[in-house]
């Protein structure tokens, strides 16, 4: 059953709906609001316990400059980008390739491979903590960015392949037959037909992956120790160790850390053109 709009006449149901939506929004946004609010306050206010009242003094500029000048946040930030971008690219490429083959080619074991991709998603990644750490130590990759990149790609490709396969399978089959009849190789078909048509899916997937990987804390803690490789999530935790009382700085740091996924969303938004496939077949 899909949600249907309430009829104009059901006034009470409509009001209840608005109240509920507002309530949920407030609960949902409260932590974010608290963090942003705290990042505006001066140290004195935070120390003095003025957490919800009007700030006696705005520490906005001070706090945000301090995050970059007094802590290694800039370094963590750069690390995070260096880890996240190649990981996202890697997952997008691998999942498009795998999704294309699984969606469009019938071969022995197709369903089995697909089932493995899907099934892998149900394993909690945490159970692999010790083996993954040991593996990386043996490969001499422990405490390097490569370790994180490899594991993010490995863990996200399953879900991403499921996503891309289903999207590519939903494209009109005659487009592929037409391409084949015109002599396009599978790779040409992928590049010239599939990729342009799945751009909205790739954009959505990129945002999701970017957020997942950027926000990952678990593997960051498991696989890194040095400041030179630590991503922002692990770095923020460090911040708390060193600056126990500086909640305003931590809040400012957190806000900064939350920005890239948001920026990513706005950047990719224009690619969310739905109905790109419209006009391919009749209509």
């Amino acid at each position, binding site marked *: 059953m899909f949600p249907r709009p309430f009829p104009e006449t059901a006034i009470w149901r409509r009001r209840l709906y608005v109240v509920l939506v507002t309530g949920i929004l407030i609960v949902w946004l409260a932590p974010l609001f608290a963090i942003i609010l705290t990042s505006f306050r001066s140290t004195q206010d935070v120390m003095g316990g003025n957490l919800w009242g009007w700030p006696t003094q705005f520490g906005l500029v001070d706090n945000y400059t301090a995050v970059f000048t007094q802590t290694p946040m800039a370094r963590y930030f750069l690390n995070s980008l260096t880890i996240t971008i190649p990981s996202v690219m890697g997952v997008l490429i691998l999942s498009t390739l795998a999704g294309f083959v699984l969606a469009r080619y019938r071969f022995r074991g197709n369903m089995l491979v697909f089932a493995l991709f899907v099934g892998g998603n149900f394993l909690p990644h945490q159970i692999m903590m010790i083996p993954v750490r040991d593996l990386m130590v043996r490969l001499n990759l422990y405490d390097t960015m490569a370790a994180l990149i490899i594991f993010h790609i490995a863990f996200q490709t399953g879900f991403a392949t499921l996503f891309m396969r289903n999207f590519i399978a939903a494209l009109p089959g005659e487009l592929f037959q037409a391409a084949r009849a015109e002599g396009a190789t599978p790779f040409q078909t992928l590049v010239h037909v599939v990729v342009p048509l799945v751009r909205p899916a790739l954009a959505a997937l990129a945002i999701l992956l970017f957020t997942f990987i950027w926000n990952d804390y678990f593997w960051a803690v498991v696989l890194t120790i040095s400041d030179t490789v630590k991503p922002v999530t692990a770095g923020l935790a460090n911040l708390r160790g060193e600056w126990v009382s500086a909640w305003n700085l931590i809040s400012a740091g957190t806000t900064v850390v939350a920005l890239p996924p948001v920026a990513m969303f706005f950047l990719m938004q224009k690619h969310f053109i739905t109905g790109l496939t419209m*006009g391919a077949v009749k209509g």
Partner: protein
Amino acid sequence: MTSLELRQIQKNYGSYHALRGIDLSVEQGEFIVTVGPSGCGKSTLLKIIAGLETVSTGKILINGRDVTTTEPGERGIAMVFQSYALYPHMTVAENMGFGLRMAHRPKAEIDAAVLRAAKILRIADQLDKRPKQLSGGQRQRVAIGRAITRSPDVFLFDEPLSNLDAALRTQMRVELSDLHARLGATMVYVTHDQTEAMTMASRIVVLNRGSVEQVGAPLELYRNPANLFVAGFLGAPRMNFFEVTVAAVSGGAATLSAAGLSPLTVELTEAASVQVGDRVTMGIRPESISLAAEETASFAGRVRLVERLGRETILYADAGPLQCVSSESGSGNVTVQIGHASAVAADATVGFKVEPRDVYLFSSVDERTISARKSTITD
């Protein structure tokens, strides 16, 4: 010169036999139209020629070259799909030049080929648009243009006009015939529209449940169907079929009798082996039945429904004991097509006359035609 040759093509999907041994030889420049009921394997046959499906057994030759296992792009074919299958993210020009671009041909050559095809199809002013900005007819032209730019040896069309409205379909039908004349290329065209088949084909291939029922020129198939299936399939409204008994056989002709029918003597083929008392199927086309006074009529009937189409009048008549076993209306009523605006009204009881030379007979054993050949010219 033989342009396309199919030898004993079979296609099985698991245990389902989609094609059961198709043999066909197409001359250079022929326009072959394949017709048949839904699910008879028309699209499968086309995909097999294109190489989009593999054969289970059999051989395909294009211009004498065995292409049975050749990739579609190297067979010298181009296919136009029912849904057009245009790439929505490319402009009309990019769509039309796609095949040549994939073959890494020089840009000047591609542009020239695209422009030439666009001019033929009168879409040269649409080249920068995207498919969704075009009307159905224009999209169809682009799809055809995409086939033309590759200058294939054989064009394959899978119901290309079925998504268009009636008026546009008529127009495109004429344009396609014209295009065929201009290009002189071999074309294989799948449709289940009779008019398309009758008007465009050099030869029609009637397909039924994965087998070829008959191949021949449109009028030849219409006048001399090889069996009951072809007779019933070609012609609208459908031929009327009746169960009758052979009352006498003499001098290569059979006299038929049935309740409500005054005896008819119909010439047989030489191969027919018919005995007195045999039950056979009699077929009469709706246009072969005319109104007559009751004393000269072959049978009489009560008019149930009248359809006045202006140019012609279609009657559905209940001929009492003379029941149609299969007809347009499917209710046992006889379909009669009168070539003018008739005054006959519903509920009238009228006489109907049939000339014996217009009567078809089909064996009830194997459904083959057993009445003598008819001339394809009727004036």
